[in-house]
């Protein structure tokens, strides 16, 4: 960046959230819009004043109607030009065309033909719609959604200042040179816009050609029918068209009332032009204030819905006010209502409408935008005109009609806001499945473990092998595929002493022959035997003896005993022996005992099972055993988790157990612990909460607690970012910087895990994965989705953290954001 550009950037940075590389193009586009609206605001008072002079307000509906009808043809012509010219040529030639037209109109007005004012009415509408549309098309071409969202407000203010200047010139100059001669001022300003367009397109190249087809030819077929088909296919675009139409109908009705009032109050042409110029000036000053003070804040703080609802709501109230105004003071009512309509249209409504186009695919956007801006606009004008011509309405009657359309407009605003989030989502693909989800969907961990045990036990003990196989049968997991796997492995392990008994005619256990017990008979028989009093008598003695043994020689016997106890009835007195095996020195024995404990779910075994969490070799089996206990032990686990006296190694694993239990009570227990700020297990708790949500999407989490947690994480992240900012790159502390980067990455991951608890997890996953994808477009859409999804309390703090900026840039504002976050949390 050159020195001049750097200074310009720093200057602009005070007014707009701009990036250094955007400086040049943003300045040129700001002035492009300034010059367009300057011209428009010189033309506007001239147009209305001359029409009222030659044709009167009563004939205004004809002008609306004619414009509406001819604008259809203009749309068609515009489509053809789009298909034949590239974007740069299209905009340039349009500007030259309009410059020439202005000179011709000045000449024609010299003849005082009434039809010229009708034709000029149509022409000025065509100019304003075309030039403004071309500008916004250029914005859409050039910028990604998130960029556009940052810059749209700045461009709108360029338009507002252009309008203010144009209206000021019109109101002052008209008294010196007359209404018609104002038209001679305009071509000079359009020439300036022409130069900027040529220079901008020559200087700036878009980052991603896909999103900026300015230098490419426009889509091949963009005719009226094609544009209409695109609209018909898309519910979102239909809603957008209807929203625009409702707003335009209201604007046209308000314009009619205002023009009638002006005609009645100001009969002299130049005085009227001057008044209109002053009115537009006041209007734009008001709009500018409104834009700077409210527009951005409303969008940022309350989102699109609020910004869309405000204009119809205000105009509804304004229209209703006519019923309380005396007939002689109608101009005093018409001026503020018209002022409100126009100022809201120029600020909040325009900003939001342009945002609404952003998630539409580029190829559809141009066609749909051209159709809506040029055809739907005028169709709505025509509809308003037909209603004015067909219905014999007084000014108050027109106000009733306006109020009705305001309500329809508000309803459409609500509908399109809902649809907006959906359209943004469709741009973001889920790129990979969550690991937890994959495991849950595709792998039965318990069965896998059992199959492994079955194969492993075959070489160690035929009793263990038989018991493991039996358990597979009992769980109905001995599928034909699994039989095959076990049979293959059995072939490798024929050394076992009981092979001849376990195999039937050389086949592995449980082949499909009549020579073995049917699986259901086997299960019934085993259960009956285990319940026999004599069995308990016989085995009681044996198990007690085995439990007393220690050392490697009796390890297999202890494993068998631990396994067998799990097959018994939980109420069996023999099951008490399991406590000894849970404390067995051999991890293999203890693992079998843990599995049996999970099957029996005896409360008296809970303390020794929990103790196993502290033994690294047993912790995973202990987690699974506790999970088997299920919801009934959630209260006990919660107490253990909260008890600072308990072994840390045990407490650290309890979130995972609760996540696996996966009930609402388990979720509440996790959240209750998470609520405590500064918990030692915050990372484990977040991971467990996210895991639980993946496995049980129906579980609900207290939004307030989760949002508080998100803010806590954000504070951690901004704290790290602040420290990162304090460390100079490349120095001795480069390692520390990298550590902070890693910590930041983990914290952001935790934030998204928490967001997935209270927002649709699919959307959050989409947003997170697209952020990680790291392309500008993916990040922009991702941020856009988050913006439409998240609670207003966290948006201002989360979005700066994830937006597409170098970490050093983000770090610069970390301190400020952290301060604001602390302030927000304190309040």
């Amino acid at each position, binding site marked *: 960046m050159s020195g001049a550009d750097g200074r310009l950037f720093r200057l602009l940075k005070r007014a707009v959230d701009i990036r250094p590389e955007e400086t040049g193009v943003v300045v040129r586009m700001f002035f492009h819009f300034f010059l367009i609206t300057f011209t428009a605001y010189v033309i506007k008072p001239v147009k209305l004043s001359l029409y009222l002079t030659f044709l009167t307000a009563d004939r205004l509906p004809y002008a609306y109607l004619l414009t509406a009808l001819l604008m259809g043809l203009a749309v068609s012509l515009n489509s053809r030009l789009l298909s034949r010219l590239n974007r740069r040529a299209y905009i340039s030639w349009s500007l030259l065309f309009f410059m020439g037209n202005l000179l011709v109109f000045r000449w024609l007005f010299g003849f005082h033909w009434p039809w010229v004012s009708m034709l000029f009415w149509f022409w000025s509408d065509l100019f304003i719609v075309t030039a403004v549309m071309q500008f916004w098309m250029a914005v859409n071409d050039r910028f990604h959604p998130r960029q556009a969202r940052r810059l749209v407000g700045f461009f709108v203010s360029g338009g507002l200042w252009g309008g203010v200047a144009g209206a000021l010139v019109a109101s002052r100059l008209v008294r010196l040179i007359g209404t018609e001669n104002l038209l001679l001022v305009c071509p000079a300003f359009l020439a300036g816009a022409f130069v900027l367009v040529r220079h901008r397109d020559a200087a700036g190249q878009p980052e991603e050609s896909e999103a900026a087809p300015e230098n490419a030819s426009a889509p091949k077929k963009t005719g009226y029918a094609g544009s209409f088909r695109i609209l018909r296919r898309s519910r979102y675009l239909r809603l957008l068209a209807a929203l625009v139409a409702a707003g335009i109908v209201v604007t046209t009705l308000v314009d009619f009332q205002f023009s009638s009032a002006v005609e009645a109050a100001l009969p002299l042409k130049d005085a009227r032009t001057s008044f209109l110029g002053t009115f537009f000036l006041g209007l734009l000053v008001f709009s500018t204030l409104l834009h700077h003070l409210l527009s951005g804040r409303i969008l940022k703080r309350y989102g699109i819905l609020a910004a869309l609802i405000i204009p119809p709501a205000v105009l509804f109230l304004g229209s209703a006010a006519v019923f309380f105004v005396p007939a002689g003071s109608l101009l005093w009512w018409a001026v503020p209502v018209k002022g409100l309509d126009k100022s809201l249209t120029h600020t909040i409504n325009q900003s939001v409408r342009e945002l609404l186009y952003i998630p539409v695919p580029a190829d559809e956007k141009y066609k749909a935008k051209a159709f809506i801006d040029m055809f739907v606009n005028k169709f709505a004008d025509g509809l308003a005109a037909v209603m004015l011509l067909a219905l014999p309405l007084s000014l108050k009657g027109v106000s009733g009609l306006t109020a009705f359309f305001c309500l329809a407009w508000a309803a459409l605003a609500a509908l399109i806001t809902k649809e907006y989030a959906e359209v943004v989502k469709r741009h973001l693909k889920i790129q990979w499945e969550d690991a937890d989800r994959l495991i849950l969907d595709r792998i039965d961990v318990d069965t896998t473990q059992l199959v492994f045990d079955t194969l492993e036990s075959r070489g160690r003990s035929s009793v263990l092998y038989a018991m493991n196989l039996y358990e597979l049968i009992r769980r109905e997991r001995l599928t034909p595929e699994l039989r095959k796997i076990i049979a293959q492995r059995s072939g490798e392990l024929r050394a076992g002493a009981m092979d001849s008994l376990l195999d039937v005619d050389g086949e592995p256990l449980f082949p499909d022959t009549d020579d073995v017990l049917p699986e259901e008979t086997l299960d019934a028989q085993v259960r009956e*035997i285990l319940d*026999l009093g004599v069995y308990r008598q*016989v085995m009681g003695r044996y198990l007690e003896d085995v439990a007393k043994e220690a050392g490697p020689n009796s390890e297999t*016997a202890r494993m068998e005993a631990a396994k067998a106890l799990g097959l018994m009835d939980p109420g069996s007195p023999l099951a008490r022996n399991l406590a000894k095996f849970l404390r067995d020195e051999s991890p293999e024995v203890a693992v079998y005992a843990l599995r049996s404990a999970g099957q029996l779910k005896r409360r008296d075994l809970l303390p020794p099972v929990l103790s196993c969490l502290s033994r690294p070799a047993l912790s995973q089996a202990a987690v699974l055993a506790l999970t088997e206990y299920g919801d009934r032990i959630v209260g006990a686990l919660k107490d253990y988790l909260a008890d600072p006296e308990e072994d840390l190694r045990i407490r650290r694993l309890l979130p995972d157990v609760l996540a696996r239990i996966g009930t609402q009570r388990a979720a509440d227990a996790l959240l209750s612990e998470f609520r405590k700020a500064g918990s030692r297990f915050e990372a484990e708790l977040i991971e467990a909460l996210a895991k639980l949500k993946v496995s049980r999407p129906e579980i609900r989490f207290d939004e307030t607690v989760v949002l508080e947690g998100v803010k806590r994480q954000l504070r951690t992240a901004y704290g790290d970012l602040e420290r990162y900012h304090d460390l100079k790159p490349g120095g001795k502390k480069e390692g520390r910087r990298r550590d902070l980067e890693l910590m930041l990455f983990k914290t952001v991951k935790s934030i998204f895990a928490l967001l997935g608890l209270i927002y649709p997890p699919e959307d959050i996953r989409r947003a997170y994965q697209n952020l990680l994808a790291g392309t500008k477009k993916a990040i922009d859409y991702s941020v856009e989705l988050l913006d439409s999804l998240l609670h207003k309390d966290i948006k201002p703090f989360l979005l700066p953290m994830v937006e597409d900026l170098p970490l050093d840039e983000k770090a610069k504002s970390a301190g400020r954001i952290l301060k604001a976050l602390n302030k927000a949390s304190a309040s």
Partner: protein
Amino acid sequence: MDIKKREKDDITIFDIQGEIRRTDIAESTLHELVKDQLDLGKKHILLNFDKVEFIDSFGVGEILASYISTHNLGGQLKIARISKKLFLVFQITMLTKVLEIFDEEESALQSFLKE
């Protein structure tokens, strides 16, 4: 169920035939027959299941009750020629760890003599 008794080298051998079920009504149960022998002072019992086609949990209970009675009097009860199916059930229930089970009658008899 049909149970025949024979003796060899001070060992009482019960040859069991047919099906051992709860629903079968026999004059004497296996356990009663074993107890009779224990009362007579015969403490070496071998149960030969060679011709047993089916045995349910009741039958297993009879074997276990016989085992306990013999064991309590300091005697020995051994089993020979049980089916693969029953052996599998005994393995699953871990009874193979307590009961002495032999593939052949001869090896079972030899084991009595060795002790």
